[in-house]
């Protein structure tokens, strides 16, 4: 084996083993053929000292990402991973779809003079109205993105989701620019918050021309429940809880919803959804953790109620995630062992 071949095979190791079992020999053959110059001396020099070009390496890395997210001729373990990432992306859109109904109900509640804890009035007034309005408008985009993916318009869905991130990104930048007005821990929390949503949007990359759209009915029902039920409740809950003594903040609510999903057998019955729930623990824990860090950064609030509640949420979710990961990992390995080997003819 020449040094060049050895180096190219090393690059191919970024591909899943099941994919390499089908395609590696052919890819090596094609690559080595493409490096032939026609001059025996040059070819010998290349074989001994050559390296795959950067563009060749990039093409293999891009292929590896695509295969892991959506390749049809890969091991079931990887196929389940791709399906789970798509579910995670849809859940990300669904969670963000809460923004619109929550904001609408909040505005209605405040504008009609509904009951409000006295301590909350000042805090709510501190938010600039134009930012809230922008989030309202952009909230529609999350719903539109979800519908676009459901009808197979993946490119439109991705574009809408990226645009929908703009207000959150603008808010993070604005806070960073005016950081003298806010605690550093809040700036960090807002950026981490944004990063979580960016990663959820990035998961939409798992939707490409190789995969069919998700089943519409269950996701449309979920969207209706979110828009008509969960969203309004999420909108009203924070303004009804005194800002100085909240019981359940947004990351806490996300923890509770994740726990329910993790323990309800119907949700985790399929391997794909069990894997998706297991993957979702990462953003759930990240959100919980960064906002806890923010609370700890508030001077003189060591006995701040959400801190204790948040720590309990963090511990319970972490413990449940270990159990879920162990169980899901075992199921994935069992199914992978029972599945037939992929081939180029499959």
């Amino acid at each position, binding site marked *: 084996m020449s040094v060049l071949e050895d180096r190219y095979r090393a690059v191919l190791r970024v591909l899943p083993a099941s994919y390499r079992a089908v*395609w590696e020999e052919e890819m090596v053959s094609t690559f080595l053929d493409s490096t032939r110059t026609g001059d025996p001396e040059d070819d010998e020099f290349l074989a001994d000292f050559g390296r795959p070009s950067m563009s060749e390496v990039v093409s293999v890395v891009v292929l590896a990402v695509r295969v892991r997210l959506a390749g049809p001729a890969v091991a079931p373990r990887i196929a389940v991973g791709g399906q789970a990432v798509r579910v995670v992306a849809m859940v990300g859109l669904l969670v963000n779809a809460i923004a619109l109904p929550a904001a609408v109900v909040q505005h209605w509640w405040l504008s009609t003079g509904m009951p409000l804890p006295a301590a909350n009035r000042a805090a709510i007034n501190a938010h600039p109205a134009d930012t809230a309005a922008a989030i309202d408008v952009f909230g529609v985009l999350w719903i539109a993105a979800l519908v676009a993916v459901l009808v197979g318009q993946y490119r439109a869905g991705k574009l809408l989701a990226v645009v929908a991130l703009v207000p959150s990104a603008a808010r993070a930048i604005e806070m960073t620019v005016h950081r003298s007005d806010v605690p550093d821990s809040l700036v960090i929390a807002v950026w981490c918050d944004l990063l979580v949503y960016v990663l959820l949007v990035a998961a939409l990359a798992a939707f490409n021309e190789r995969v069919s759209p998700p089943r519409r009915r269950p996701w449309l029902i979920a969207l209706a429940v979110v828009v008509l039920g969960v969203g309004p409740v999420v909108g009203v809950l924070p303004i009804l809880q005194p800002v100085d003594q909240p019981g359940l903040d947004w990351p806490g609510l996300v923890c509770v919803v994740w726990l329910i999903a993790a323990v309800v057998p119907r949700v985790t019955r399929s391997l794909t959804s069990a894997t998706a729930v297991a993957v979702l623990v990462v953003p759930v824990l990240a959100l919980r953790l960064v906002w806890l860090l923010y609370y700890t950064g508030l001077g003189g609030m060591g006995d701040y109620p959400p801190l204790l509640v948040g720590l309990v949420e963090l511990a319970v979710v972490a413990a449940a995630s270990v159990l879920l990961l162990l169980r899901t990992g075992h199921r994935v390995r069992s199914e992978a062992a029972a599945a037939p080997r992929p081939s180029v003819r499959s």
Partner: protein
Amino acid sequence: MGTGVGTEQAFFVLTALADAPRHGYGIVREVAEASEGRVRLKVGTLYGVLERLVAGGLVEPDREEIHSGRLRRYYRLTESGRRSLLADIARQEANVRLATERLGAWRPATAGGAT
């Protein structure tokens, strides 16, 4: 450029297989020649496209040969691939006709034509 068969690369791969079965490097060379050097497929890109076309039933393995001790797998166009390529050609021809007609009606702005 997106096409009815997927990407421009997929269009050229199908075109390369239209007249005869070819192996991986044969496709790379044919695509580079057919596109006058504009489309140069990297190996990772080629196999991403090939895998998708095989999975979609547009291309299928033809035969395998060992050349200088290395595997060469040949691919051929399927009937479904031929129909997809024809449909894509028709679509691109319609696009070209439309653009040509519009350009025919074009006048410089100073001549009072459409802008």
